[in-house]
C-alpha cells in the first residue's frame, strides 16, 4: 500500500517540475514577445534595427558588470543597455554616420563584455547562456521580473502611443502639436532597454534584435493600421515563442534560436499570403 503511494507522489512531483519549467518557459517567451511587439514596430518604422542590436549587444557588458559587482543581472543589463541607447541617441543627434557608429559601438560593447565576463575568476558562468539565452532555466523570480518589465513596457507604449506615432512620422509635426519628439525618443529608448534586460535570459543578446524585428515585419504584410500591426506582431511573437519551445522540446534544439526560426517561418508565410491576396 505504502509503495504505490510513494511512487505516485514521486511521479506527480516529477510531472509538476516538468510542467513547471516548460510552463515557465512558455510564460517567459510569451511575455517578452508581447513587450517586444510594439517596440519592434517602432524599430521597423524608424529604421533603427541596428539600434536594437547595439542595445542588446551592450547587455553582455551589463552581465559582466553584474557578476563583478554582485548585483542582479537584470539591473546590470538594464543600466548598460540604457546607457548604450542614450549614448547612441545623443551621438545621432550630432550628425555622426549612424550605421558606422552603431557598428563600432555594438560590436565593441559585445567584445568588451565577453572579455570582461571571461576575466571573472572564481565565478563559473557560461557566456553562451547570455548570448543565446537559457529560457528553460527561467526561475519563478525571473518570471516575476520579466512580467513586471513586460507590463511596464506595454503600459508605457499604450500611454505614449499617439505621441510616439506622430514623432515617428515627422518630428516637426510633433513639435507643431506641442509634442517633444526627443521625449518620445527617450520613452522608446527606455522601453527598448527594459525589453533587452528581460529578454536576455529568454533569447539571448544575439537574437533580441530578431525578436523585435521579425514579428513586426511579419505582421506588416497582413495589416492595414499601426495598431493592427502591433497586435499582429504580438500574436506572431507569442506563437513563435510557443512553437519554438515545442520544437526545442520535441527535437532537442536550442530554445532561443528555435523561437527565432519559427518567427522567420511566420515572416515567409505572411508575405506569401499577402502576395497571393494581392494577385487575386
Amino acid at each position, binding site marked *: 500500500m505504502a509503495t504505490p503511494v510513494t511512487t505516485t507522489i514521486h511521479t506527480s512531483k516529477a510531472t509538476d517540475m516538468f510542467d513547471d519549467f516548460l510552463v515557465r518557459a512558455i510564460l517567459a517567451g510569451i511575455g517578452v514577445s508581447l513587450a517586444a511587439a510594439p517596440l519592434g514596430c517602432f524599430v521597423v518604422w524608424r529604421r533603427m534595427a541596428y539600434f536594437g542590436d547595439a542595445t542588446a549587444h551592450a547587455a553582455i557588458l551589463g552581465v559582466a558588470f553584474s557578476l563583478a559587482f554582485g548585483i542582479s543581472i537584470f539591473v546590470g543589463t538594464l543600466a548598460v543597455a540604457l546607457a548604450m541607447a542614450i549614448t547612441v541617441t545623443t551621438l545621432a543627434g550630432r550628425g555622426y554616420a549612424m550605421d558606422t557608429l552603431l557598428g563600432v559601438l555594438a560590436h565593441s560593447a559585445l567584445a568588451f563584455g565577453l572579455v570582461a565576463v571571461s576575466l571573472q575568476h572564481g565565478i563559473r558562468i557560461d557566456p553562451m547562456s547570455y548570448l543565446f539565452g537559457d529560457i528553460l532555466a527561467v526561475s519563478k523570480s525571473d518570471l516575476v521580473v520579466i512580467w513586471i518589465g513586460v507590463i511596464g513596457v506595454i503600459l508605457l507604449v499604450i500611454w505614449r502611443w499617439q505621441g510616439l506615432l506622430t514623432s515617428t512620422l*515627422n518630428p516637426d509635426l510633433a*513639435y507643431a502639436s506641442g509634442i517633444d519628439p526627443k521625449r518620445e525618443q527617450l520613452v522608446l529608448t527606455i522601453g527598448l532597454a527594459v525589453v533587452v534586460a528581460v529578454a536576455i535570459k529568454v533569447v539571448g543578446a544575439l537574437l533580441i534584435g530578431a525578436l523585435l524585428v521579425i514579428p513586426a515585419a511579419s505582421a506588416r504584410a497582413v495589416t492595414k493600421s499601426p495598431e493592427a500591426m502591433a497586435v499582429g506582431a504580438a500574436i506572431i511573437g507569442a506563437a513563435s515563442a510557443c512553437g519554438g519551445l515545442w520544437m526545442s522540446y520535441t527535437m532537442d534544439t536550442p530554445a532561443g534560436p528555435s523561437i527565432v526560426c519559427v518567427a522567420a517561418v511566420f515572416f515567409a508565410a505572411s508575405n506569401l499570403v499577402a502576395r497571393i491576396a494581392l494577385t487575386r
Partner: protein
Amino acid sequence: MPVLSGASNVRLVTVKDVSVKLGGHQALNNVSMSIDKGEIVTIVGPNGSGKSTLLRCVIGAVKPEIGTVLKAANLKIGYVPQSLAIDPTLPLTAGRFLSLPHRRPSKAVADALRQAGAEDIADRPMSGLSGGQFQRVLLARALMDKPDLLILDEPTTGLDQPGSADFYTQIEQVRRETGAAVLMVSHELHVVMSASDRVVCLNGHVCCHGSPEIVASAPEYRALFGTGTHGALALYRHEHDHHHHDGDACDHDHSHLESH
C-alpha cells in the same frame, strides 16, 4: 487685404531679433516679423535662405540662439510640412493619419477631408494617394485642431502647375471659411504676389517686407530674384490692374508659362 474687420489687429506670433545657427552655418540673422489674425503672410527667398528654419522656429522645432518667438496664449497651429516620407513598413490610412496626435470621431475626419478638398479617401492608405491628394490630406490634418494659424512649408512641392494652382485656391478657401491666418513658404512668385497680404523676403536676414507691391518693387527683392521675376512681376501687375473672373485664370497660367 485683411478679411476679418476688427479682429485683424490681434497679433498671433511675434518673431523678434531671432538668430539661429545650424551646424556652424548662420541660418537666420537678426530676423523679426509678425503675423496677425486672419492674414496671409508669405516668405520668399532663394534656396538656403532660412525660410524653413524660420517656420521651424515658429512651431518650436528650432530654438533660437538669440531673440524670442512670442505666441499668443493658447495659439493653435496647424502645420503642413514640406514633405512627409512615410516608411513603407508603416501601414497608415488617410483617416488614421488625421487622428494624430489626437483621436478623432470619423465624422470630424470626413469633414476635415471635405474642407481640404479630398473627400471619401479616409480609408485609403497614405502610400496609395496621388501627390495632390497627399498634400490635401496633410492640409486636412492641419485643420483638425481648428487652428488660428496655418503654417505651410512649400506645400505644392511635387505638384504640377494646375495641381498647385488648385491647392492655393483651396488654401484661400480654407482661410475664408475658418478665418485662420496663413504663414507659408512658397517658390511660386506669381501665386505669392497675388494671394498674400504681406510678403517677407528672406536671405538669412529680412531683405524687405511689406505688401506684395512694395516687396516686388524693392531693389533688394529684384537683386535676389533677378530676371526670373520679370514674368511673375508682369503677371502680378496684370492681375492687379484688372479684376479677373475664373475664366481669366487660364490666361494667367498661359502667360506665366510663356514668361519662362
